[in-house]
């Protein structure tokens, strides 16, 4: 049986310059759970991708 692949659990983009933590990125929250799931797979694939010499 093939071993389970690793997963991306959470993604936060950009940097927060503020005294209070970055709470809600409205831009991304507009997209639902399906989009988040698909992006998690894509980010995982891009992380694993071998470096091109």
């Amino acid at each position: 049986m093939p071993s389970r692949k690793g997963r991306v659990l959470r993604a936060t983009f950009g940097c927060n310059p503020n005294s209070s933590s970055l709470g809600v990125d409205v831009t991304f929250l507009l997209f639902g759970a399906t989009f988040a799931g698909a992006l998690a797979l894509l980010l995982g694939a891009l992380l694993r991708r071998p470096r091109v010499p």
Partner: protein
Amino acid sequence: MKLEVVRARAERFGGIVEVARPRALLHVDRQMMRELGQPESPLWDSPAEPDAPLVAPTEVHVVLSRRCSAGCRGCYVDATPHGAALSLEEACRILDELAAMGVFHVALGGGEALELDHLFEVAAHARKVGITPNLTTSGLGLTQDLAERSRVFGQINVSVDGVGEAYRRARGFDGFSRAERALRFLRAVKKEVGVNCVVSRTSFDGLSDVARLVRRLRLNELELLRFKPVGRGARVDEELTPDQARRIYPLARRLMLRHRIRVKLDCSFAPMVFWHRPSARAAAFWGVQGCVAGDVLAAVAPEGHLMGCSFAGPPEADARVPGAVRAAWPEGFSSFRGFIRSAPEPCASCEYLRLCRGGCRAVAGAHGEPSAPDPGCPRVQEWKARSPVDGEGRRPAGSFALPVVRG
């Protein structure tokens, strides 16, 4: 395209990896950490606890000083022209310790950080030890030369609480033209420039003008920060009305779509977002959370106090003492970390409790009880309206009805 891992650190659930392009922090599971070639961690020997805090904050707000000549009427750090400040040596030593703990970002602020002679040396030191320094500034004293030197920072946000006359109404003086000039200077040298806007009862109706400014100057974000009644802010009556609290999230979405800009809401707005019942799975993936003080976030005050966030204590340690931050982190911050376990109603029965975490502790504290649910939460307000009050004016156990404590 490959996402290059710049830094990584182990966590109980796996780890956090930082990638540079696009700039992001990714939480990954243990298996992914192994696939990325990260070393095995003893943290992975036992099952991950669902609500365990991170092994270190991902970002720390370093309040470099309470020194600022602007005198904004609602300043939450009560800054004055001669306020306390961390010395260069103290700030650098603290950064060394944060870097050793695996902190990824620091938010440098004040007071007005640009009024400190050693701001750029502190930022350069952060870079040297592998931490991304970000900056919040009023921009009032920013020159072209200072803008050029500001390339050292990651994200820079300039505080603009309104456009034109609205700026004066919000802050108590006319500084809009200088703030706008600062934005132009900064945008000329870098892309990661945005606007911080404190959303108060007064500034609420002017948010569309601020969004238009962000679009016109081609800035990369508008961050909406909830007004908190702390510092000098405790003496002004500017908290959002219940109606504004319900409207802020739909308004933020409209601003984003209409002006095609990135809009963020700070963590204290989480209850106002979750009241609209967004997808909990999506919210968890995008890191949408309420109070993350003493978990994702920590703060260091100019007096050296290590705190959960800049708005609320208590001090956990003197961050200027070598090793104090690392020693305080694992077991400290109980006033923040314990909320989920001991949440009173209506938070206890809220499906978003684990994400929202009871809203803002600083606002709850300003209303007299830091461990109470956030009184600005629409759900809390609805619950209070429904709950019976006994003959002595008390609500059932676990409830609250608290006056605002004005300093």
